[in-house]
Each structure stands twice: as structure tokens, then as C-alpha cells.
């Protein structure tokens, strides 16, 4: 059953005041709702070097009520595999292992360990929170950064390449559950974490996590940016269960009625796109439209 209203979400908070994340952090909001969906006492979170490390605080104080095991940047999939194996070995299989990595830790340096874990069918949830750059180290380009975005390692020309098709790569592993989410749509996000929790095998959730300092928009616009990404089709909300694709939430509503907003609407509110050329906007629009059409076709074919 889909969660219909915010008041249906658990009231208990698992992230206390005092995190070291920036104000209006998309990851922070994502994590807040994700932990509500998981059983915080029976969850172990594997965290690589990233903003997530920062969020979890500085030793010996953590503001998060969950067991967190930090691991090196490249190792998330493998560390999670070890946690799952170790828990099985000691008879604690009732724990859910959840990896929470950034786009850099997922699309780039961590992809090998992630692929290995998925190929082995490791029983865990892998969450990629995609803030479209290496934000922890100061807004460098990742392979998830969009075309036309200025980052600190694409400072003059802006990013020339398209975003890597990580979902496609993940799907090719044939895992039972793949989903996207956005902190701007917390009910949908909550439902997907709930769904993932009850499935056995490798599960992947990719959350589009807007980042005010990294993208260059005012803190107050966090939700607006998250929504715009979905309403333009830059980020599409869907769920793939055993290969069966289904649009959800606002993306579903868009498919059923309504019109996508334009990419131009999305990029204009962010200083990272201040140098984007007309041609690049067209390229981004084309990329967005093509993906959207593909998703629509898959949605219509659903069983």
C-alpha cells in the first residue's frame, strides 16, 4: 500500500540534531526518510568516504541512531558483502545491510566492488545518493555530473560528456529490485525503501540528491530543485521489480497526464549551469526526452 500522507510516516527520528552536513542537504533528507522505512535496530549501514561520512559526525559522537561501518571509498560493495557473510556466519541474518554511497563512490571508484556484489547476488540494499559530483572533496566532476555543469575539475569548459547510464549498468546485473527516488517526494522514497527491505537479494536504489552549495542554488530551493528534476524528466521516478518496469509518483502522473517542464527551466536556477550553451541545453533536452520516451514505452509494456 502506498503511503498517502506525510502524517503516515513514522514519527521517530533516527538522525538527531548535530550532523555535520550542510544546510538543506538532499542526502540528509533522503537518509532521514530511508531510516524511517528500515528497522533502525536491525540495520547496518556501510558508508564509504563521502558527505555521508561527514553527516555521521566526528568521533566519538554520532548523531545517527543506526550501526554504521565506515569503509574505504572503493570498497562499499565488498564491505557490504563481508557484512552479509559475517552476519550469516554468526547467525544474525535478521539484520539488513544497507550501503549508502555517493555517485562518485558508485559510478566511478566503487563500480567494481558494486558489480561484484550484485553478480554474487549479495543480499543487501545498495543506495546511491546522486548529488552529481564529488561534493565532499569540493564539487569535482563525477561520471554522474550532467553535461554543461561547471565543477571544480571542469571549471572553464564545463562537463562535456553525458551522465553515465548507471541504472542501465545496474539493471544488466539482473537483480530483483532497482528503483529511483527523490527526497522531494518523500512518500515515494519511503515506500521504495520499505519495498526493498522486504525483498531478498541485491537491491539498488538511486536517489537524486540536490546539493545547494555544489549546484549553486539557495537553500530554500532544495525541494523545488528536487521536484523540478522530476518534472523535467531529468530524474525519473520508477521501480523495476524482477525486470518489470513501472513509473511511480510524479513521474507516473506526468506520464498519465500533463507535460514535462523544459530542461531550460531546470538549469536556469543553478549557477553550475551558468556557462551552459544553447547547444548543450538542446543536447541535455534530447538526452532527457529520449530517456523519457524509453521509460514510457517500458511503462506501457508493463505486466
Amino acid at each position, binding site marked *: 500500500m502506498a503511503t498517502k500522507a506525510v502524517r503516515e510516516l513514522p514519527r521517530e527520528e533516527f538522525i538527531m540534531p548535530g550532523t555535520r552536513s550542510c544546510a538543506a542537504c538532499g542526502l540528509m533528507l533522503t537518509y532521514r526518510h530511508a531510516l524511517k522505512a528500515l528497522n*533502525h*535496530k*536491525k540495520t*547496518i549501514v*556501510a558508508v564509504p568516504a563521502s558527505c555521508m*561520512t*561527514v553527516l*555521521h*559526525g*566526528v*568521533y*566519538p*559522537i*554520532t548523531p*545517527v*541512531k*543506526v*550501526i*554504521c*561501518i*565506515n*569503509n*574505504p571509498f*572503493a*570498497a562499499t*560493495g*565488498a*564491505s*557490504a*558483502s*563481508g*557484512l552479509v*557473510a*559475517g*552476519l*550469516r*556466519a*554468526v547467525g*544474525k541474518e535478521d*539484520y539488513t545491510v544497507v550501503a549508502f554511497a555517493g555517485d562518485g563512490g558508485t559510478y566511478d571508484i566503487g563500480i*567494481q*566492488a558494486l*558489480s*561484484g556484489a550484485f*553478480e*554474487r547476488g549479495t543480499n543487501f540494499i545498495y543506495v546511491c545518493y546522486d548529488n552529481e559530483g564529488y561534493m565532499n572533496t569540493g564539487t569535482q566532476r563525477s561520471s554522474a555530473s550532467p553535461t554543461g555543469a561547471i565543477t571544480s575539475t571542469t571549471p572553464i569548459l564545463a562537463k562535456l560528456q553525458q551522465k553515465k547510464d548507471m541504472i542501465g549498468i545496474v539493471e544488466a546485473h539482473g537483480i530483483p529490485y532497482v528503483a529511483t527516488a527523490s527526497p522531494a517526494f518523500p512518500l515515494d522514497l519511503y515506500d521504495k525503501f520499505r519495498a526493498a527491505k522486504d525483498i531478498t537479494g541485491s537491491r539498488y536504489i538511486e536517489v537524486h540528491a540536490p546539493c545547494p552549495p555544489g549546484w549553486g542554488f539557495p537553500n530554500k530551493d532544495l525541494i523545488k530543485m528536487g521536484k523540478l528534476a522530476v518534472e523535467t524528466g531529468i530524474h525519473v521516478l520508477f521501480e523495476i521489480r524482477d525486470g518489470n518496469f513501472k513509473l511511480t509518483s510524479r513521474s507516473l502522473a506526468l506520464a498519465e497526464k500533463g507535460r514535462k517542464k523544459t530542461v531550460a527551466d531546470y538549469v536556469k536556477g543553478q549557477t553550475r549551469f551558468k556557462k551552459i550553451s544553447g547547444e548543450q541545453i538542446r543536447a541535455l533536452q534530447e538526452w532527457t526526452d529520449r530517456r523519457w520516451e524509453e521509460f514510457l514505452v517500458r511503462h506501457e509494456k508493463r505486466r
Partner: protein
Amino acid sequence: MNNVRIITANTAAAIAAALCRVQVIAAYPITPQTPVTEELAEMVEKGELKAEYLTVESEHSAMASVIAASQVGARVFTATSANGLLYMHEMLHWAAGSRVPVVMACVNRGVGAPWTILNDQQDSISQRDTGWIQLYCRNSQEVLDTLVQAFRIAERSLLPVMVCYDGFVLSHASTPVEIPSQEEVDRLLPPYSTAMGISEGDFMNLNPLILSEPRQDSEGHLKPGYMDLRYRLQEDLLAAMETIQATDREFESIVGRGWGGLIWEYRMDDAEHALVSMGSLASESTLAADEMRKQGLRTGVVGVRAYRPFPSEALARALSGVATATVFEKDVSYGYSGALATDLKATLFDKGLRPRFHSYVAGLGGRDVRPEQLVQAAMEIITGTPGRGWIDVHG
């Protein structure tokens, strides 16, 4: 001698891990370690060993996963060689810093480029500053026995232990090995229980960001900073010397064999000349010592078993009466000299000992080392005409 089998050191390593009832194994194949990986996989698939076996996609992942499994309370094992070990480098630091009792067999192999699959000890020597205990073995029996001891040492000191043995020379050579009984091993190694395992509702944050200075926790207790943890690691590694010796003594009292603890000595009682080395090369040095004794030179061998922690006291004691000390090793700290020689020289200086001293690099990439070459090198020191310090080198 009840259960003697003719096996390789690799088989001995796999048997040792099984006898230690490891619960999680993750390994990635690399010559000459591969048979360890394969034999453990077979034991697990046949149901002879009840363990989780992770067929990981790299050595970085192998070490990452055994560390994590250890953190939730499982007894873990892995094995590797050469470039595989180097690929783990980040994770080796992570293991020591996490204070997990991971045990690993390192089958020593030269490091590329250019490629070689044959033996030297450059791989493990290159990892000496990662905070691991490193033990070097002279034969397959010692490999088996040391691996059993390694789990005990690791779990007592909460430090990772690397058991090193020479590729092909030992890993693929079949010799008689006595297998201890399960009961004997169980007596040395009780079921693994760790203070680090997880418990419900205990919301710990393992290996988080840490500052250099000590800091209060939410209850006002002062907790260490980064540097304090590093100091603890150093102190505990030094203290592990006692644990290594005690474990070897206990093993001996149960199984009837001991390996000398930190170092072993051969004909050192009245020795005027000492040959110092590690692993199978130290074993081979005993032939050179015998030969020199035939020539009327009172020569003995000091074999270094524990390279980290470095047994300074024991070595100084063993070498206190010698006129010459010649070090043979299968590694180089490039730009200086052999690593063992460097450490030993520093130790002798600390203790005010000044034997005539020289170091020789030998056998890199599997180049054959013959006892007469060791004799010749030692003679250079005795006659006061040290050569260039590389045995049998061209170019």
C-alpha cells in the same frame, strides 16, 4: 607422528584455516597463492568446512570483505601474493586501523613490472609499515603451525597477522607435514568471540572521521584522537611480541612442536659468525653454516620469524657475541639497502653492538641461490672485503 601427509605449503595453509574453523573466507586467485583459494573452495563446497566463501572480484574487495565480516564477529581468512597484496594496500592499513584479527597467508612472489610469478619477498616487505604482524616461515610444517598460531595471536592482540612463505620454494613443493588434530587446535583456539561484534540497539559508528586531539563523548568521557590511536597500535604491536612467544609455547605444549617464537637459531651457541635471514632462505643458510663449520669457521644462523613486530631484544641477544653478521634477504628497500639489514643494523646500533656487518640481496624473482654463494658472501665479510651486496647479479 600420527597424521602425516605429503603436501605443499599451500595445502598446509588451507588445512590450517579449516582446522581453525574459519567462518568467512574471501580470496582472489594469483599465482602462487591460487591453490589455497581453490582448496578452501572445495572444502566449503563439499561441506567439509562450514564457512561463507566469497568469490570476490579483486584483492581490494577480498580484504574489504573479510575486514567487514570480522567487524560483525566472524573468524576470517584470506590469502594472496605479490600484485594482489599490493592491490590490498589501502585495505591493509584499514585492517590494522580497525583492529580486526584478520589472518592472511602471503605466498611471497616478486612484484611486477616486469612480470614474474616466482619468489622473492618484495611484496610483503613493501607492506611492512601497515601495522600488521608479519611472520615468516621456513618450511611447510611451520606454515601450518604458524597459521594456527596466527589466529590465536590475532585474536589476543586484536591485530591482523600475515603469515608469509616463499612462493614455489614452499608453496608448490611437497614435503611431509604432520597435521594436528582438531582437538589440539581447538584447545589453542577457542571459538571466536570478539568485543567488536555488533549488538542490537548499540548504535556504534566504526571508523568514523576522527580529529587529532582527544575529544569528549556525549557522556563526557575523553576519547582518543587519531594520534592516540596510532600510538596504541604501535604499543600493541610491540606488546604482541610477548603474545607471539606465549602462543608458540602454548602450541608446543599442546602439539609438541615449537618454532622459536620471534626468532630461531641454528648452531649459534658458540658462533663467531652469524648468517641472518628470513623464510626459506634462512633455512638454506643452515647449509652454508654447516659448510663454513667444515672449514673451521664457527658459524650459525639466526632466522627471523617475526619481522613485525621487530624482535630487537632477541636479535641483539642472539648476536651479542659474534664478530661478523651477514644478512641475506630477498627484498630491497630501493634507494637504500635490504629492509631486514636496515632494521637489524639499527637494532645493533641501539644495543651498542658493532659486529662487522654487511647485507646481501639474493634470489630476486626466483633466481636460484646456492649455499656456496652464501658461503662466499659471508667470507667477503670475514676477510673484510665486502662486495656489492647483490649475490649473482649481472648488468
